[in-house]
């Protein structure tokens, strides 16, 4: 695609912002509106990233830039009865549903029972809790060099605001269900989540993403997660979108002293997925886990860019990423570990493995260490290969047919990732979904 088209499409997204503003009715007065304006200006400066951009070397987004996509409209194709396919056992009463980026009160099913906890969709929270939000929203996810974050910051008008005050525990895991419907035409949606977990608090969040329709969905997400002193947030994300979805997801987690943040990120759907998952360990004795699994077939493209920033001493990070690719699928894993000058006694571990199952599948891996402190223990390992032929022969010699032996081995390859999912019903359902999906590879 020529440069002109990049500019043209960028200008389209910039000019559309006026229409968006005019439809915000009332939200123009909130302090956040200034941030929106500066974000759209930044986006205009940055434009969409081209392949010559080092961070986009292996991911080509030009198919997404062929059409001038309008902002997402409403859809009423999903009924409460449809949701059963997407929900997890035991989490049906903690369900927050978003359709095409907009919160759906009708489909959601949630009642807050903990004092001081705020769980409210962003559009209304921007009005009702503007001060609390101003403290955190867009304070962590930097849009200075990330066009998609800039775009989301400018356009996002809904999502979820979760605020857990100090010492509170939200026992029941929350389920954030994201549905897309592009049956009425292609669209562009922005969802923005803000999660603030106060000191000594506990929270579990499960996100899942699904969709229907043939036209392009450009789903652009940003989540900011703030984990204060000694708090623990467990985060699970399942991306199983339909084959017309372009799923772009930027996560910025910010950790304070002695906090724990764990993300298990699973990508098995969508046409093109790009995750930028950033975890900043900003105080001592933090623990961060980035666990991921991806699986692609046909022409799927799945790109995970992760960064763990050890800014302070005595922190521990653990990253495990596994991928299985068949058909003409391609995968990208880019895992950065930064250990800043002050971050002595850092312990950082990264392991990523990929399996290629077909002649046309490919994977590009770049595990990257940048170390500026000497008293650290850092290691990364990366392997790409096939299933162990010896093990398959062993299974076959016990009477197990070849195909089954292969899917058992694929499952075995992936299974340690699932063990990190802290909610049993979620683990079992994901586990089952993936095992079934192996057959399609």
């Amino acid at each position, binding site marked *: 695609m020529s440069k002109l088209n990049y500019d043209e499409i960028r200008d389209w997204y910039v000019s559309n912002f006026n229409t968006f503003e005019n439809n915000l009715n009332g939200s123009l007065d909130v302090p956040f509106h200034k941030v929106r304006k500066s974000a759209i200006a930044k986006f205009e400066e940055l434009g969409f990233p081209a392949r010559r951009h080092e961070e986009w070397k292996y991911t080509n987004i030009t198919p997404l830039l062929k059409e001038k996509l309008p902002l997402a409209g409403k859809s009423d194709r999903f009924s409460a009865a449809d949701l059963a396919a997407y929900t997890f056992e035991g989490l049906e009463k903690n369900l927050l549903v978003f359709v095409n980026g907009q919160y759906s009160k009708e489909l959601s099913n949630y009642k807050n029972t903990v004092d001081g906890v705020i769980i409210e969709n962003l559009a209304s929270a921007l009005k009702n809790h503007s001060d609390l939000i101003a403290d955190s929203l867009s304070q962590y996810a930097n849009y200075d060099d990330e066009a998609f974050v800039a775009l989301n910051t400018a356009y996002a008008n809904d999502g979820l605001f979760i605020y857990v005050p100090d010492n509170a525990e939200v026992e029941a895991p929350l389920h954030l269900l994201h549905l897309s419907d592009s049956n009425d035409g292609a669209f562009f949606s922005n969802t923005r989540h803000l999660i603030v977990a106060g000191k000594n608090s506990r929270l579990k969040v499960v996100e899942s993403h699904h969709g229907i329709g043939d036209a392009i969905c450009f789903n652009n997400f940003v989540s900011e997660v703030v984990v204060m002193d000694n708090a623990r947030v467990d985060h699970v994300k399942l991306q199983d979108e339909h084959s017309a979805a372009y799923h772009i997801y930027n996560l910025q987690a910010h950790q304070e002293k002695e906090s724990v943040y764990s993300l298990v990120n699973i990508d098995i759907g969508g046409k093109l997925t790009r995750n930028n998952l950033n975890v900043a360990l900003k105080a001592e004795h933090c623990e961060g886990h980035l666990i991921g699994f991806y699986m692609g077939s046909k022409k799927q493209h799945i790109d995970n860019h992760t960064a763990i920033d050890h800014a302070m001493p005595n922190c521990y990070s653990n990253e495990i990423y596994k991928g299985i690719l068949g058909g003409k699928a391609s995968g990208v894993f880019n895992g950065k570990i930064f250990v800043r000058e002050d971050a002595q006694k850092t312990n950082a571990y990264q392991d990523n493995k990929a399996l290629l199952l077909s002649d046309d599948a490919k994977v590009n891996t770049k595990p990257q260490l940048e170390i500026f402190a000497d008293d650290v223990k850092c290691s990364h390992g990366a392997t790409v290969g096939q299933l162990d032929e010896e093990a398959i022969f062993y299974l076959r*010699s016990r*009477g197990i047919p070849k195909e089954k032996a292969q899917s058992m081995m694929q499952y075995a390859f*992936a299974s340690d990732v699932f063990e990190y999912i802290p909610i049993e019903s979620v683990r079992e359902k994901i586990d089952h979904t993936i095992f079934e999906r192996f057959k399609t590879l």
Partner: protein
Amino acid sequence: MITIKDLHASVEGNQILNGLTLEVKPGEVHAIMGPNGSGKSTLANVLAGREDYEIDGGEVTFNGQDLLEMGPEDRAREGLFLAFQYPVEIPGVSNVNFLKTAVNEIREYRGEEKMDAMEFLAYIREKMKLVEMDEKFLSRSVNEGFSGGEKKRNEIFQMAVLEPKLAVMDETDSGLDIDALKIVANGVNKMRGQDRSFIVITHYQRLLNYIVPDVVHVLVDGKIVESGDKDLALRLEAQGYDWVKGEQAAATV
């Protein structure tokens, strides 16, 4: 049970089996002994159907069927079991899942009802006693982190679970201390019966004190050069393999 006729096999262009002929009848235990490199393990792997081995000639009939035509899983379903010399570690696959899958695949092949989880557990517990296996073992990954002895016991345990017609034991005694050897031998002896045969491949006579064979064969350069009763094993132990090699050389002169 099994008839091997003039079998020739090679690995990466190296001829290993050179016209091996052997017949094992139901209920018999045959021991195959031979020096290093004589083709013992090749025989075991060829029978189990490993793809790295090229069959250059000969035939193998197993219960009236052409064994060499079958894939490894079908050989297992027909009742052939190989106790591996080096059992493979499979991280992430639990023993219980592995065995349940194998048992049900074999049952399905034979037109039998699949076992449900409860039935299977009851069945498997019974078998565990045979080789003095601990219950905890079931949830561990196949052979992962097992000691050499544990791996070999696991092979015998699997044999007990899968109830084969013919078990080929490839140097199951290597690396075992005397206690483990007794447990393994005991497991095999309990399984001996009119309809089940064994081919016990070993380098040393020691194992044959515990698993007493009906016939002992000596394999040299990919061929059986001598067959006899269990006393042949004792003679080999006392005089070494040079004795048979020498005899063979004399015979060819």
